[in-house]
C-alpha cells in the first residue's frame, strides 16, 4: 500500500518537476506585481511608480 502511495507521490513530484522545467519556474520569493492601469496611463508611466525594495541590510 505504502509503495503504491509512494509511486503516486513520486509521479506527482516528477510531473511537478517536468512542469517547472517546461514553464521555466524557479524556486524563490522574488516579488511579482502588476502596475495599476492608472499608473501606466499617467504621464511618465511606470517611471512615476513607487517600486518598493527592502534595501541593503548588510555592510561593515
Amino acid at each position, binding site marked *: 500500500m*505504502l509503495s503504491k502511495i509512494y509511486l503516486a507521490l513520486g509521479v506527482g513530484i516528477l510531473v511537478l518537476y517536468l512542469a517547472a*522545467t517546461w514553464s521555466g519556474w524557479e524556486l*524563490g520569493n522574488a516579488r511579482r*506585481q502588476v502596475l495599476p492601469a492608472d499608473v501606466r496611463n499617467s504621464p511618465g508611466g511606470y517611471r512615476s511608480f513607487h517600486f518598493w525594495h527592502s*534595501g541593503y541590510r548588510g*555592510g561593515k
Partner: protein
Amino acid sequence: MTALQANCPACGADVTFKSGSSVVVVCEYCKSVVARTDRALEDLGKVAEIVESGSPLDVGLAGVYRGVAFELTGRAQLEHAAGGMWDEWYAAFADGRWGWLAEAQGRFFLTYPTPSPIEVPPFDALEPGRGISGIPVAVPLVVMEKGEARMLAARGEIPYRLVPGEVYPYADLSGQGGVFGTIDYGEEPPLVYIGREITLAELGIAETARAAEHEARRVTAAQLQCPQCAGPLELRAPDKTERVTCPNCGSLLDVNQGNLRFLEALEPGKFTPTIPIGVTGEFKGGQKLTVIGFMVRSVEFEGTRYFWEEYLLYDPPVGFRWLVQSDNHWSFVEPVAPGEVTDGDKIVRFRGKSFKIFQDALARVEHVAGEFYWKVTTGELVRAADFINAPEMLSKEVSGTELIGQRKRKKHRLHQEQQQEEQNHLEAEEINWSLGTYMSRRDVERAFGITGLPVALTVAPNQPFFHSKIYGYWGLLLVITLAVGMLTIVTGARRKIFEQTFSLQLPAPSPPATPQTLLPITGANSALPNAPRSRARATPTPRTSPTPRAAATTVRESEGTQVIFTEPFEVRGRQNIRVTARSNVDNNWLFVAGDLINEETGVVQQFEIPLEYYYGVEDGESWKEGDRDKSTYLSALPGGTYTMRLEAQWEGRRAGVPRFSILLEQGVPRFLNLFLALLALSAVPVLVLIYHIMFEHRRWADSAFNPYATATEGDDSTESDE
C-alpha cells in the same frame, strides 16, 4: 512376455509368471512367495495380506512412461524401522526393463536398477545430508535417509527374490531436478537404483477409473473406538496414520493396520490449538487441506524455552503439509527433496536463492493432538536448523537415534559449543528439508474462514518487509528525473538578452536624497536587436517622486543611490531568467534592486542583488569575504518587451564610486530544481530504509547467528555464560 503356469508348492493352487523375467510370484490363495529357480519352484515363506493403503495404483494397471508401455505386475509393503510403511510397485516395461515405483505419503519415485554393480560407500559410512560419490548421474546426490526396511506383505509378480520378513539396510538418495536413488545394502555388492520423483500424470495412469475409484475410497474417514475410554475416534487419514490422540480422554494411541493401542495419557489442556482439528482450509493453488494433527514443539535458547505450534494438514491428492504458528506469525510449509538443497554451514541454496542460517537447535515435541503419519511421541527430539530468505524459510530436520547417555553436561561453555554438543546426541538417520512460506494473519483467516487470530507484535524470521517495492519505484523515478534533468541541462537555450555596465556617481550635496539617472558607459546591450544604442535614455529621470527610500530619507548622507532605466529588450516566455550583477566593489558594498517591467501589460518582476567584497590583513593574516559578482534566478515571465529599472545603492563615504554591470540570460539550466526533485523523491524511501534497517534488526534479534550483533554483545554473552 512368456507366461509360465505352475502350482504353488505350498497349497497347490495355480500360480502364473506372466512376465518372463519375474523372479517370484505371490500365491493369491495361501500368500506363499513362490520363486522360480533353474530346477523347480521354491517356497520362500508366507507374507501378510496387503493392507489397503488407499493407493491409486493397483496390480495389473497399465500405463505409458516416456513412450514405453508398462504394467504393474506386483506390489510389496515394507515397514520403516521408525514405524510407518510404504508401498513398492514393480513395473514391467515393454522394452524388457523393470521399474521400481515407490509410493510414500502421496509421492511417487520411479527408479531402475543400474545395469552393472557400482562401488558405493559402506552403509555405516553414510551420513544423511552428506554427498555421495561414485554413482553415475548428472547431478550430485546427497544421502536423504538411511535405515532398515522389513518386508511385510506382497502381491503379484516381483522381479527379485523377495523373502518374507527379511530386514535389509537401505539408503535413499536425492539430487536436484527430482533425481532420486536407493541403495539396497541387503545384497552383496549393494544394488543401486536411480530414477526420479514423478507424478501419476507422467505415468499416464492418472485418469484411470481405477485411480478415481481409489480416490473416492481413501478420502473416507475411518470410525474407530478408543481402547482406553471406548469413546468414538475418527481417522481422517486412516491409510497413513501411525499415531492418533483420543479427543475424549487425550490418550496417545498407536495405529497399526487399523488397530489402536494405548501408549500414554497426555496432559490435558496444556496446549489448545488456535485452529481446531478437523477444520478444512483453502490454500494456494486451491488446495483444500484439513487439519488432522496439532503439535507443539520447543527449543531452548540461552536458558529460555520457546514454543511454537505446528498443524498437520492433509488432503489425499496433495499429501501432507504443515501450517506453523510462532509468536502469532504463520507459515505454510511444504516438503522439499534434500537433493534440491545445496547445503552449507551458514548459507544454503535452493531454487537459485540463498538462505541465511537463522537458528540451529534441538527441537523437542511438547504436545501432540490428532493424527500423525509417523510414530510421534512427546519428548521426541530432532535437530532443527532454519535458513531464511523472507518470505521463505528452509528448515532442515535431522532425526535419528538419541544418544542421551553420551551427552556431556558442562556449565560455563559458549553458546554455540553448547548447541553443537546438544546436536551431537542425535545420530542422524534421516534428513528432511521443508520450505515454509510466510502467511499473513488475514491469509490464514481467509483460508479457514475464521476471524480474530491474535496480532503478531514481533518480527518473524521469514516475515517479508512489505515495503521493499518502494526501492524499485525510487530507483525508477530517480533515473527518470535525472534523465529529464540532464536532458534539460544539455539542451538548455542559454540566451543572453541584456548586458550593460554602469558607472555610478555620488549624488550632489543638495538636495541630498534626489536620485539621479545615470548614463550607461558601455553599450554591451547594443548587440541585442531590440536595444538600439541610439535610444539610450540620456535624459534626467522624469520621476515625479523620489524613490521610497529617498522619500523616507533612509538614504544616509554616507550612502549613494541612483536609479537607472534601461532600453527595452525582448523576453521570451517559458524560459527562466538569470540576473548576474558584477561590480568592482573594494572593501565596500553595492546593492542593486531591479524591476523588470513589461511595457505592455505592466507586469513587474522584482529582484535584489547585494554585492559586497571586503578584505584586509588582521594579526598578520590576510582575509577576504564576499563576492564581486552574484546571480539570482527568476521564474519565466510572459513573453514581451521589457524595460529594467535598476536602483543602485552603495556606501558613499568610502573612497571610489563603484561600477557595476548587469547580465540577463534566459533558459539557463539550474541544478537546484533537479536537486529538490531528487530530494523530494528520496524523502519517503529514506524513511522506509531506516524503518527497514530497524525491522531487520528486530528480525535477527532472537537469532544465534545475528549479523547485527556487535563484538561487544558477543563478548558480553560470553562473559555471562562463563
